[in-house]
């Protein structure tokens, strides 16, 4: 299975990257954008999807500062 792990900063933790994006957008003429957060995307093929949560807890994320979500996705064609 091809899976995506979406990792984002935990709510309440200062996210300067999100803020930087939010500040930069109006200058380029993009208004009406709020609550920007920047996190990480990890895509991978796993043989045993049941082990994904454990992988996330142990390596892919730091649960103290990040939340994550696992999403199934299309296999890559190659």
């Amino acid at each position: 299975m091809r899976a995506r792990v979406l990792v984002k900063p935990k709510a309440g933790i200062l996210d300067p990257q999100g803020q930087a994006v939010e500040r930069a957008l109006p200058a380029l003429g993009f208004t009406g954008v709020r609550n920007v957060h920047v996190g990480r995307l990890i895509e991978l093929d796993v043989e045993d999807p049941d082990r994904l949560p454990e992988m996330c807890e142990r390596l892919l994320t730091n649960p103290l500062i990040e939340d994550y979500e696992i999403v199934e996705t299309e296999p890559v064609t190659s």
Partner: protein
Amino acid sequence: MRFGVIRFPGSCDEVDAQLACQRFGEAVILWHRDRDLKGVDAVVVPGGFSYGDYLRVGAIARFAPVMEEVAEFAAAGGIVLGICNGFQVLCEAGLLPGALLPNTSLRFIFRQVELEIVSVDSPFTGAGESGQRLSIPVKHTTGRYYAPDAELARLEAADQVLLRYAPGENPNGSLNDIAGVCNEARNVFGLMPHPEHAVDPLTGPTGGLRIFESIRAHIADRTGAPA
């Protein structure tokens, strides 16, 4: 005394740490794949970009075989000092509380900063005085110390914050100006500034000497050897 400095692939400041330690004793390099701490009295987890800092700083290095030994050594009361990337690795490994997040500037920053010793009750600051100022450089992109509110309150109450950035000197947005914290047992210490780059008057201020002196004095006390 004998220091051991870990070398991960991507470590950069391990030779610097070794040179600094050699001013105070013997210092050997410990290879990341070896499960052998070579009988050292103190372990230094040095700065740099272990495993490229890919994924998340310190995330991959904490799983190196040598880190299992370091965890055991620490559990048995061994002295462990984590500098910059080493601090990040120790947090990731759960040997120190909290985490390091990207600087609020989002940029790498090199700066000679003023630090204040908060607590002298530790093997790492024992030779200093409370409130004493040390000039030591920082150089990192991910040095903003973070711990959840309750944890932070607990750290402060337990006197685990050993070093703070002096007022106005916080380079990265660390909570409570925290520059370095120790664990509850006070034998594991991590800091973002680089004391190993502040030991030689030829190359700059020497605020880092206090840290290494403290470790040597502590080990000498413990083993009864002359400092």
